[in-house]
């Protein structure tokens, strides 16, 4: 017999097989015990014929295997196309919580200041009048000393009205240079409304070093405001008054809603007030035993609620305090 012709015939037939059944028949026909090839192999006497027949056998076996796996794969694919899910159905509901928007802002602030080389700290919330007012050079007639504006426990203890006492604490704890930001809760005696809550959060920065300038303060606040609100924001500064800084300024950031054109959010000014700042008043240095001729510094304080509200466009500050999951799960 002609082994080559048989091989070609078999390979052609195998290639044409379209079902596993057909392939099985072909396997029996060409490789079965009674197949022409097997009979020829049993009858072979010379080496040359034997080699040719064996080569044909191997080629046919390989072809069957290859065709077999391709037919199986085709059948699997055919079956899989029947096995269809509705991809618009929701996925499994896995538990995932979320960070409060103020915590998110707190981390942005922390990271921005860490990048500038500041340490992060917080200090006590129940303060003495000495640390909350006296050492920060509040005048005896400053309205913040009034029990109308400030929560008193007794004549000498208050809930801190700003994070500024941290300035005194850090200056008493360590020698300059100091670069620190203090973040935490502060308290003012405001009735609860859409825009005010008697408890809120501030970050307070303090830098004390040799020959710091108002320009350094402007640059620092520009970086931090852009970290919070985006790199396209502009920052401007207005003169102001605080007992513990001189000169004192207030930073404004350009309104992100209208881009500075004026809208309801910025009360049609194009600017949004961000807090207070200034160069450390020499009195504060004197109050902690530092020489104002040797050291200079700047300080600033801003509210976290304001930042959280602006980032998420939350019109009512109470949303941040009510713990309502319908609101909090959005952030």
């Amino acid at each position, binding site marked *: 017999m002609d082994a080559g012709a048989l091989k070609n015939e078999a390979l052609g037939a195998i290639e044409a097989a379209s079902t596993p059944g057909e392939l099985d028949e072909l396997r029996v026909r060409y490789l079965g015990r009674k197949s022409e090839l097997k009979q020829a192999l049993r009858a072979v006497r010379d080496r040359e014929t034997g080699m040719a027949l064996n080569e044909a056998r191997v080629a046919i076996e390989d072809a069957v295997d290859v065709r077999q796996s391709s037919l199986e794969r085709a059948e699997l694919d055919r079956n899989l196309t029947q096995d269809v899910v509705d991809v618009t159905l929701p996925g499994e509901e*896995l538990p995932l919580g979320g960070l409060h928007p103020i915590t998110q802002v707190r981390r942005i602030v922390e990271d921005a200041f860490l990048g500038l080389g500041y340490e*992060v700290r917080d200090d006590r919330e129940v303060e003495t009048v000495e640390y909350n007012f006296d050492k920060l050079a509040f005048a005896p007639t400053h309205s913040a000393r009034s029990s109308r504006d400030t929560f*008193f426990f007794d004549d000498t203890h208050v809930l801190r009205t700003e994070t500024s006492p941290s300035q005194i604490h850090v200056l008493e704890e360590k020698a300059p240079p100091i670069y620190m930001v203090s973040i935490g*809760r502060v308290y003012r005696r405001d009735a609860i409304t859409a825009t005010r809550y008697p408890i809120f959060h501030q970050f307070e920065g303090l830098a004390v*070093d*040799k020959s710091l300038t108002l*320009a350094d303060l402007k*640059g620092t606040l520009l970086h931090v405001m852009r970290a919070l609100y985006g790199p396209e924001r502009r920052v401007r500064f207005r003169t102001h008054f605080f007992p513990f800084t001189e*000169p004192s300024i207030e930073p404004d950031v350009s309104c992100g809603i209208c881009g500075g054109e004026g809208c309801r959010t910025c009360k049609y000014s194009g600017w949004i007030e961000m807090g207070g700042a200034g160069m450390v008043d020499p009195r504060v240095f004197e109050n902690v035993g530092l020489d104002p001729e040797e050291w200079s510094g700047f300080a600033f304080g801003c509210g976290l609620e304001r930042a959280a509200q602006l980032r998420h466009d939350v019109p009512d500050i109470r949303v*941040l305090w009510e713990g309502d999951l319908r609101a909090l799960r959005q952030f």
Partner: protein
Amino acid sequence: MRVPVAWLRDYVPLEMPLDDLATRLSVSSAEVEGIERRGVPDQDGNLSRFLVGRVLEASKHPNADRLQLCVVDVGEGEPRQIVCGAWNFGAGATVAVALPGAVLADGLELEQRKVRGELSNGMILAEDEVALGTDHTGIMLLDEILEPGTPLADVLPIVDDVLLVEATGNRPDLLAIYGIAREVAALYDLELAPPAGVNPERTGDEGIDVQIEDYDGCPRYIGRLFRDVAIGPSPVWLKARLHAAGMRPISNVVDATNYAMLALGNPLHAFDFAVLRDGRIVVRRARPGEKLRTLDGVDRRLTPDDLLIADAERAVALAGIMGGEDSEIGESTTDVLLEAANFEPFTIFRSSERLRLRTEGSNRWEKGVDPYLAAPAATLATQLIVELAGARWVGDTDIQGDLPERPVIQFSPDRADRLIGIETSAEEQHAILGKLGFEVEGERVLVPTWRARDVTREVDVTEEVARFRLEDVPFTLPERRAMFGTLTREQQLRRRVEDVLVGLGFVESYTPSMLPDDETTWKLSEPITIELTALRTRLLPSLVEAARRNAEVGSRRVALFEIARVYLPAGELPDERLRVGGVAEGGFAYVKGVVETLYSALKAEPVFELTKDLLFHPGKLARTAAGPLGELHPSLLEGTWSAFELDLSTLLEASREPVTYVDVITFPPVRQDLAFAVLEEVAAGDLIDAAREAAGAELREMRPFDVYRGNQVAEGKKSIAFSVSFQSHERTLSDEDASGLREKIVEALARRFGAELRA
């Protein structure tokens, strides 16, 4: 401070756009919080339809008893017929007229129309119709010298803008129109008019008996006496200015004092002189228990902290804060004593604070008014009282204590540059100071009296320069020589606690630091609401409340956490400790899993112990060293809820980070399941502890996976099945090693707990 722009123009010429003025003032002087447009619309020629008119004839409307039919000359040649509902005028009156087509302050457009059959070709105006005031009881009567046809806008501010200026506490000089004008003049390099007011001729020389007993509280007292005073309403222009500035017109004399205060910043007071006993003024401290009924009709009980204006016998005013009712100017007053004094800030602040009484006066005094301002303020008020009330000025006295000297400050422009961070030439710095009223003599700067309280040091002078250069100062960063920033270990681990809880499905919530009540000595003396009264010693009550509200509105899978402080009473100040608290739907096993996961994330191992806590289910409650966890007491929330409250620093102290590597890969473990029958009261944890003690470090893990009660074990017993693995990090354990370890465990548990090995 409301600053009507028309009034401001009296003192400084304004050519710049108002928005630019508002921005410059905001940046360099005091924030302009807004610009209020007032009056009638200034567009489409609207102003040309408001004219001065003279009433030629006025008679009753033929068809209406309550209306007048008027013929009014408005300078057009042909007079107009106008129907008017007011009766406070007659023929010859000079009035303000709006012609048909005019749009009034409320936006209504006037039409020519018939009123009860008679044509009304315009309207005679009351002050509210052009926003000059609120009065609608009669029409405005204008000065008779005005010519009919004169544009009304030339005579009255029927169009005006008001700057809403928020002056800072150190700038009482900006609580005055003139003070704002001074800043504007300096900012734009404009000429500032001298302060308003010229003393009229004094027509008498009566003595005024003024005694100051407390020069600290009252360093200066100018008293001026007026006779033949005719109390009446102020003219329209004056009422319009007060109204625009936010004050209610009262009577010519009172309005004159308020006008002078708004213009110059020195509060004044006018007494009915006839009521003052012995015609005497005594400035003294109140006697204990002394009383005064103030102008607002409230009886005030005073203390020696309060400074009084008294007559020979009794209190007649609370100095600087409010006058007394008895000596108030009334319609029948004919003799007036004008007070232009100076009061010390702290005295006023303390009284105003204690009496909860804040007034335009106290607001200025407590910020510190320039004592040299009393004289010009007296002058302006005197001029007005004489002009408006036809009064004769007959007496004048000025009692002074030691008035402060103007501060002299050593000032170096170079040092100012170094603080501000931008170079400004000495000439320019001196020019800025000069425009603000400072006098520069070489290195010495003489501070003007109106800034003497605020500017006392070199750095204060530097601020004056800085605020004018603020927009030019560059943005730089400090050239740091030391310091680098990193979160502390505690801050890093706190973030991890937050993140792990978020991953477990907890939503972070913020709740108030105060509770309606708590077991604490830290309670606010004047809370704003009883809900926020006592500093909390626990987080859970607020979180349970928040969970309840969420459940009530139908939120599913409620799980809340908070990291915040509690305030534990301890000595002079409370011990403020950060806690992490959580409340969630689920039972004991769930919350224990949460706490175990937290510990695990911190590379710490919790030890659970029994405890007591009234917030929790008494049988499903445990504690770690950091605090309690368990099922909430069923009386608190409906359903099965659990909670934990852990002290953050205790939790973080337990952290074993960084962990040391243990080889659990090279030598394989031998795993077995062991089940023991024990009495009901034996705790699984005690069995594990005993097993560890017996088998040592090669007992790698022993974890309960089933608890069985039933036929297969005796009554009163339970079977606990453990999956156990033995492993050494030095060698492969043989079967003999494993059975040896197992024997030690079985023996120990049998001995200590009577445990029987079941499988």
